[in-house]
């Protein structure tokens, strides 16, 4: 049995995940704004989520430090990905906060100033992409860990970030669906449908990216092969295959495709439940992806090293497996709580 990567644990996985979701939500929202969605809610939700999520992630990173108070030195070495990444995160959080501050709360200056809002969005978009890609590059530049040292990892994390960003915006829209009425409610539903359709394409791409990642890494030397083995048949396989590939990608893809193909036939309430279900699964899958890739990052052993067994499934791994049915129940409960809109008789 191969020992897992334990230098970076759950805090870092959550950090990579939250930074991804925040950046992804921002990208989705700003693009929705650019495309001129009828309901402004889709754009506002993502912008409102972006900076706080990335900030929470950064706080987790801060808590993971051995000497948190030394973070003032963090910008000292421009060759370090942490230095570059922290700068990107900082700028992104500031832009995100400005975007919230002048559009949603406390000021609403940008509501009418469409041009200025879009310029700010464009600038933020650059740093949102930077944030999402950085989480992959952080691991990608580590030459000592062959499983991470690949160009597809930043792309995979970017795809996952945007896809989980879609999921978070869809979830936010679902929460607001019940509180809106008439035309507005219709607009929310329309945005959700459009977002789910675009997300389905991304989830499909992510599935392929995961497949290519594993296929190529399995022939990138003995250490990378060990990492792949951990994920597909080793200690991480239940979480990775069950949590990410099946529940986190295939099931949401099936749900979203079903929704897209039967758009006209499905009642809004049912569509709502389906969207929420797939969104929650996608978000959980995003976290599982970060944790699996982190844990499988086996460092290349010295040539004469004997591998000793160290790892078995821990409490947190079981917790994440157990969390899926609980999340399903939660979605079911919330969906019951949403008032069904009254039928409008023409």
């Amino acid at each position: 049995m191969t020992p897992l990567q334990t230098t970076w644990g759950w805090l870092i996985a959550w950090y990579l995940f939250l930074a991804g979701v925040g950046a992804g939500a921002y990208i989705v929202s700003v693009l929705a704004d650019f495309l001129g969605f009828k309901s402004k809610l889709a754009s506002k939700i993502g912008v409102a989520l972006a900076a706080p999520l990335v900030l929470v992630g950064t706080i987790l990173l801060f808590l993971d430090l051995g000497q948190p108070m030394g973070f003032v030195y963090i910008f000292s070495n421009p060759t370090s990905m942490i230095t570059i990444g922290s700068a990107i995160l900082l700028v992104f959080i500031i832009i995100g906060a400005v975007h919230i501050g002048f559009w949603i709360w406390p000021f609403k200056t940008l509501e009418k100033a469409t041009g200025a809002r879009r310029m700010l969005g464009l600038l933020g978009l650059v740093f949102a992409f930077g944030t999402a890609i950085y989480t992959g590059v952080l691991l990608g530049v580590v030459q000592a860990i062959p499983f991470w040292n690949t160009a597809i990892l930043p792309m995979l994390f970017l795809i996952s970030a945007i896809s989980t960003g879609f999921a978070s915006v869809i979830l936010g829209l679902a929460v607001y669906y019940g509180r809106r009425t008439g035309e507005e409610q219709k607009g929310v539903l329309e945005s959700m449908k459009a977002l789910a359709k675009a997300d389905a394409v991304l989830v499909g791409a992510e599935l392929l990216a995961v497949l290519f990642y594993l296929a190529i890494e399995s022939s990138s030397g003995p250490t990378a092969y060990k990492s792949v083995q951990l994920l597909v048949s080793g200690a991480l396989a239940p979480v990775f295959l069950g949590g990410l590939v099946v529940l986190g990608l295939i099931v949401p893809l099936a749900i979203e495709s079903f929704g897209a193909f039967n758009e006209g036939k499905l009642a809004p309430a049912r569509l709502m439940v389906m969207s929420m279900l797939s969104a929650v699964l996608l978000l959980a899958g995003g976290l599982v992806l970060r944790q699996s890739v982190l844990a499988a990052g086996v460092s290349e052993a010295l040539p004469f090293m004997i591998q000793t067994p160290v790892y078995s499934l821990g409490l947190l791994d079981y917790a994440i497996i157990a969390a899926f049915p609980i999340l399903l129940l939660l979605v079911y409960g919330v969906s019951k709580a949403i008032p069904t809109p009254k039928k409008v008789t023409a």
Partner: protein
Amino acid sequence: MLIKLQRCVGCYGCTAACKAENKTPKGIFWASAIEGETGEYPNARRYYVPTLCMHCENAPCVDVCPTGASHKRPDGIVVVDPDKCIGCRYCMQACPYGARHFMDAIRGYYPSGLTAWETKAYSQHQVGVVEKCTFCVQRIEAGVKAGLKPGVDRDATPSCVNTCIGRARIFGDLDDPNSQVSQEIIKLRAMPLKPELGTKPSVYYAGYKGEM
């Protein structure tokens, strides 16, 4: 540094000498050894490979350190400044030799807590930072100040080198082609570990031919 593997008998004298010199707490070993066995009966044998920080010329740990705490001294020794280290552990991921250790806590060797000696000795270590072998930089510095030559005079030489019962370790200036260590590396065709990574380690191993 040159390590002659044929001369290593696996006594762990280097590990003990390092512990005595650098006073690392329980669970932290700057100098250790990998042991294994090779061959099949009746031609089987055990082998030992002493490990430590390789003090690479192109040190990946220095490249990734966001604060500049991990840095290279003008004499080529890679050290960590504990006042600047924030414990992000990126260097541990980047090190291909597993030479770095995170001080998540200082643990004593006795169940009743730290002894008086341990309390005093461990005070030179800091919790929450990454530490590693320093080539006994304190000995080298003091020795050079006293006009001694590292690798020649014992008081300017790492303690693992001094203590080795098989004289398996040779220390000296790799930049000086006439030093004993440079000469022997050429003579014995010694190789660093994982040379393919381009890290250019300062620790060479003689008697290692790709497999043990």
